[in-house]
Structure formats: C-alpha cells, structure tokens
C-alpha cells in the first residue's frame, strides 16, 4: 500500500499539467491513466483560444483580448473560474517549459498564428513545435513552397493541400516521391515507418538527394508530420542543411506523430522528476463519507490500492471515458454523477455536424465550486478532497473555441495549486 499526497486520475495533457504543477509545489504525485487519452491525437500545436464567441465563429488574432472578454462574459467557463491572472501564469510557465524542451516550442506571446493543415485549411493556434515553425512562416510569407507527399501514404495528399490554398498562395506546388526506393527493405509506407526512416542518417541523405532536384527555387519545403520521433528537431535541422531551405511539418489526422511526441516528452519529464505514472487500466475510488480515501488501480489480475490525501480528476470527456453517455443521459462514472443536459437526445447535437455554434452536449460537464470541486445536484461538493480539471469541466466547447490545450494546462495548474493551498491551510 503506497501513500501519495495527490493522485491525478487521467494521463492526458490536463493530468500531466496538474502533476507537473503539483510536483513543483512539493507534492508527492501519482498519475493513473486508463488510456492515453486524447493528447496523442492532437496536432502537436497548443491552442489557447482561437475563436470567440463560437456563435459567430469569430477568429481572434489575439487570444488575450478574447480571453479578457470571455472571462468577463462567462465566469462559469473554465477560463472564467481560473481568472485571467491564473490563465496567464499557467500558460506562460508551461510555454516556457515546452520551449526549453526537446521539441522546441515557439510562440509569439501576444498573438495566435495560423498553421497550414493536411486539408489545406488554416488552423489558429498559439504554441507551435519547432518542426512547424516554418509552416507558420511559409503561410505568412506566401513564398514559393513545395509540399511533398509520399506515394502510397494515403493519409497525406499534397495535392489536396495545394489545391485548397492555390488561389491565395500561387507559389504553392505539390509533388510526391516514392519512398519504397529509399527504404532498405520492404516496409509499409505509413507514418511510423517513415518516422523511423527519417531518424536514420542514410535515409535522410538519400531523401535529400532525391528531393533536391525537385525543389526548383522553392523557399520552403512542407512535409507530412513524419519527420522522426523524439529526434524530430535534429532531423528538421539536418534536412534544412542538406536541402538548403527550411523544412516544416504539416499536421495530419491519425496517427499524429507531433501529438505522440508531446505525450512522450511530458511523460518523460514527469518520470525524471520521480512522479509515478501508471497507464492501461481503469481505477475506482474508495470513498468514506465525503472524502476519497484511496484510488484503486484495477489491474487485470490484481488491484493496487493507493492511499492519498487529495485527488484531481482529469479524465477528459467521452473519448477517454471521463464522461459516459448512455441512451438517456450522461454520467461521470467515478463519482457516479448524472449530469444535467437537454432531456431529449435529439437536442444533444445540432442538425449539422460542423455548424455554429457547436453541439450542446459538448458544453455539458462537471459543475464545480471555486475550489474546482465537482458539485452534486444540491450544489455541494461531492468530495471535499476531490477536484476536477480539464475538458471534463462544463461550460466550454474547446473543439469550437480552439482552446483545448489552454483549458487543460490552465485548469490542471489551478487544481494543483488549490490542492497545495488547501494543504497549507490545513
């Protein structure tokens, strides 16, 4: 039986941010995650706030301006609960950490930037990994750019990208190469095999030799996000040297290597700091009156019990099963809370998939007090020592606001800070 100061349930961005902050504040932390959550599926870029309000789909160049408005108009929004100051300090700290790390995140502290995606659409975001730095610049400059794809890699079509943007960016060109010839043996042409290949010297050389004659005066080279695993930064730099022009990655759907890399980096950080991380099985709560006594890891053969003073619930929404929707409603499974939502399932989603402002069910989540403790139907905290953070909170629509990473980091930090403060006060 092992004792911790705080157990964070959920190993995604929220959970890891909360764990990071808790550790900084001197707490002994354990993270228990049933699944990898949604971080590995993200583009690798970190969104703070891109659209506000969602009704009008108003793209905001300055997330801080938008945040000021939001915090004032919507105090129940997770950003509202944390407050502008809390958002700023958490985000700045985390951004600095990512900038200093192996993925070399960049940000223009004031403004959002636009990233070219694998659909040729533009994605507003705030922090961009090193491998996508030139993606932003290429679009801003509209200079001659070659978008290169791979034969048989069906997940990325340079033609799709270029055709979508061509009108606004006449200097954009598409081409493909056959990677089979560049690989030593017969392998699938897929994201992970290509990434492994890019981490090899010999492959990079052959790749550069093949691509050089195709560049034709281009000032940038765009590629699908396959430029290696943890070694992506040196890979990009070396390709730039070999080819004589900046190289950038373009975010893809799934698998998304930039999201996977960020996940690994954040995990490694926590492990280095001595935080215990368990992944792969669900947990249950052991409660006594209005407190959580322990978090029980439900291994497939045996259970493991972790006693703890505090719990941070960072289990996300439906994808990570932080919330579960049955035919008649939505439940939070660990506290066994039924959530309030439109009575008819017909009202959960709009008639249109992509239409504004977004689906009502996406705004449903845990209501919390100022301590970020989930409240029951009567408005009282369900457990005095359990706080919630991240997408599981109600009152936001991160997918339409483009605020996912921000909500995760900021509320993760806020929850950890409240845990630490409460301990101090106790």
């Amino acid at each position, binding site marked *: 039986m092992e004792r911790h100061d705080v157990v964070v349930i959920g190993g995604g961005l929220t959970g890891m941010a909360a764990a990071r902050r808790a550790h900084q504040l001197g707490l002994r932390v354990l993270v228990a995650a*049933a*699944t*990898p*959550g*949604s971080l*590995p*599926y993200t583009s690798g870029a970190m969104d703070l706030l891109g659209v506000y309000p969602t009704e009008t789909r108003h793209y905001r160049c300055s997330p801080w301006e938008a945040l000021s408005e939001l915090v004032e108009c919507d105090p129940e929004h997770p950003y509202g609960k944390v407050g502008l100051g809390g958002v700023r300090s958490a985000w700045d700290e985390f951004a600095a950490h990512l900038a200093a790390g192996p993925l070399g995140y960049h940000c223009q502290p004031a403004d959002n930037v636009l990233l070219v995606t694998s659909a040729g659409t533009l994605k507003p975001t705030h922090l961009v990994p090193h491998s996508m730095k030139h993606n932003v610049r290429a679009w801003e400059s509209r200079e001659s750019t070659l978008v290169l794809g791979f034969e048989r890699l069906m997940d990325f079509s340079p033609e799709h990208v270029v055709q979508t943007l061509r009108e606004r960016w006449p200097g954009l060109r598409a081409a493909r190469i056959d990677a089979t010839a560049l690989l030593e*043996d*017969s*392998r*699938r042409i*897929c*994201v*992970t095999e290509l990434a*492994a290949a890019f*981490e*090899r010297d010999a492959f990079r050389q052959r790749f550069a030799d093949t691509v050089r004659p195709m560049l034709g005066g281009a000032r940038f080279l765009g590629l699908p996000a396959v430029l290696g*695993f*943890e*070694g992506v930064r040196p890979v990009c730099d070396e390709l730039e040297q070999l080819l004589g022009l900046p190289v950038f990655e373009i975010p893809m759907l*799934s*698998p998304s290597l930039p999201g*996977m890399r960020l996940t*690994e980096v954040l*995990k*490694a950080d926590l*492990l280095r700091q001595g935080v215990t991380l*368990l*992944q*792969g*099985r*669900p947990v249950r709560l052991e409660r006594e009156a209005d407190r959580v006594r322990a978090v029980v*890891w*439900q*291994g*497939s*053969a*045996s*259970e*493991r019990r972790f006693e703890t003073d505090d719990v941070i619930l960072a289990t996300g929404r439906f*994808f*990570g*099963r932080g919330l579960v929707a049955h035919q008649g409603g939505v439940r939070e499974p660990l506290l066994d809370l039924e959530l309030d939502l439109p009575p008819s399932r017909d009202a959960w989603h709009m008639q249109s998939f992509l239409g504004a402002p977004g689906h009502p069910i996406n705004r449903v989540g845990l209501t919390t007090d100022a301590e970020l403790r989930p409240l029951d139907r009567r408005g009282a905290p369900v457990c005095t020592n359990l706080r919630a953070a991240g997408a599981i909170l109600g009152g936001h629509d991160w997918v339409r606001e483009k605020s996912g990473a921000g909500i995760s980091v900021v509320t993760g930090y806020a929850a950890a800070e409240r845990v630490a403060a409460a301990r101090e006060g106790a």
Partner: protein
Amino acid sequence: MNDTRQRMLEALLQQGGDGCVSCGACVAGCPVADWNEERLDPRRIVRLIQYGVGDRVAELDWIWHCTTCGRCGYTCPSGIDVSTLVQAARALVPHDRSPGQIQQTADLHCTTGNNMQLTSEQWLETVEWMRDELADDVPDLEVPVDRCGAEHFLTINSKLPMYYPEDLQDIFRLFHAAGVSWTLSSSWWEGTNYAMFTGDEATWEHTLRQQVDRVHQLGCRTMAYTECGHGYYATLTGLQRFGIPHRFRVVHVVSLYAQWIREGRLRLDPSRNPGRFTLHDPCNAVRKAVMAGIPSIAEDARLVLDHVCEEWVEMTPNRDANYCCSGGGGALIAGFKRARTHHGRTKVEQIDRTGAAQVCSPCVNCLDALNNLAQDYQRPWKPVHLWTLLARAIVS
C-alpha cells in the same frame, strides 16, 4: 453460431471491442503489423472478429507472429487489448497444431519439471560445477540446494544450466555478496511458463501448482523470480487466475537487487562496467505487469543500473511504452524466424539511437532475442543480464 466465432466475439466484446474508433494507434505501435502475406495488424484482427469471421483468426499465422507484448492495449484509447484476443484465439487452436516448439516445451516442463528435460542430477551437477569454478575467487561461497527454511526460493531459467552455465556463476556470486538467506531447489526450479503462450491453461496451472508446493515444502517465504518476464507474469497472474493459495510472496530478482542496494548489502564499483549502456524493459515485467496490477521492475532496474555502471541512457520510448524484443509470446521458438527478424527492426533502431555498446536486458528470453537481432542485423551492441553487471561490479 460457430463456437469459435462466438467465443472470439465474446472475448472481443469483453475487451470493449465495440469501442474501436479505427484510429490506428495500435497499428502505429505494433512491430508485427502488416509485413507478411496475411497483411494483418491489431486493428484488422478486431475487424475480423467484429464481422463474424473470428474463427478465421484462430487459423492465422499472425497470432503466432504476435509477441503478445500488449502495446496495442496500452495505446488503445478504447482499452482494447488485442494481445488478449490473440491469447483467446491461441487457446482455441488444438495444442498439437500450435507452431514450432512452444507446446513441446510446455509439455517438457510439465513432465520433467523444466523445459530442457534435465534430470535432477544433471541440474545439480551443473550447479556444483559452476560453484567449483568460483571456488578460487570466492572461497566461502555456498550454494544452498533444498535448504528448508531459507528465505528466498530462487527460480532459474533452464537455458542457463543448458547453454549459459557461466551466468549461474554471476548469480551465485551476487546472492553470496548480498548475504541473504536463499536456496535453489532440486526440483520444480524452472523460471518460465511456456504453457501460457499456447493458451494451455491446464499445463500452466499444473506446473505452477507444482512449483508452489515445492516452495511450501521448503518453507521459503519469498519466491525470488529469476530475470524473466513471462515467467514472473505467468506466476503472479496465474496465482490469481487459478486461485492458488500460497504462503509466500513473489518478488522479481531485480526488485531484490534494488532492495539490497538500498539496504547497503552490496558494495559496488560502477567503473567495473565501462562504456555506454541502455536498458531494455521486458514487456511482461513492466508494461504487462502494470496493466495486470502486479509490481513492475522498471524503477528498480534503473536504480540498479545507476549503481553498476557509470553511463547509461534511456531508450525512447521506455518503461511501459517500450517495444518488444521481438521474442515474446513464444515467438523465439514459434518457427517464423524470418518474420521475427523483420519484426525486430523497430527494436534494433531503438537501440541504435541510444548509441549504447551494451543493452541491459533483465530477461532470459529478451536477451536471446536481442542477441539474435544483433547477429541478424550485424550490430555491435551486446545484450547483458543485470546479474552479470552486478557480479562484475561487486567489490569484495
């Protein structure tokens, strides 16, 4: 409905298979995906079962290529562990039709008490021989056999007496230096359980019970499980699965090493192991252990490495995200050598990236698999047991 199809569909739905969102995370992390003629990967296995062709899954070679490393289940956002489905499918294959030598090995274990069919005499002769070899170096070395009341019952992989007897010397040296109470056993000393690989639960249970009885007979309070992944996993999960009462705890030797270091029982000189090392986390003793709820050796192995060498670097990914050595799940002796070598390319590249000269590999099967890869891919790095590094580093 065809019984096999029905059982596979049940196994799938129990795993939450209806929740597959087709994201391909399992495929991205699976070294065995889509190379051979069957063009399969974990996602496609789920599809086959969903679509009512689960019986075909039991006929595939792919389920024997799979090393049951569990990385699919680990990365799946829906919690679907395809390695468990592979196990379910293997269990539906008649034992005499499982490929290679897996079942035969399990049968030998069952009938003779060890995989190599060694008699008690042969085993103990080798033990004595190796002890004698050490006599000059460690004059007061004692290697207890069948000592009643000893604290630790040490299991040994029969490959050691059979093929790598020198490793026994390292182990003896190490246990002696730790000054703990321990014993070998003349019978039921094998530190593996290959029956788990073919889904032969009857044999798995039988051999486990025999060993449990032996530990009880000797009155040991700890089963010190040798550097092995699947044997450790099969033992701890088997005790649960078959409801076997036992009056001892099972501890992986790596955890014992770490404990001894923390207790100051070992004086170690890390300069005795020069050069750069890296660490391979055995799937069954780390990732699958975590998912089973049994202790993982990941942090203990790191503690030990910190003390036995001067320079070591992590592979990426590592711990429970590590890639399989390519030899898990019986793949070492399943007979698909060419495929296995190809599937090891991810592992080879992972090791290459560390720039290490030696790969610490605290599992006998992993070590064999990595040796094969080093040979097939002509790599200079050498796999090595943790007991070897310890034995070298011990200061008398």
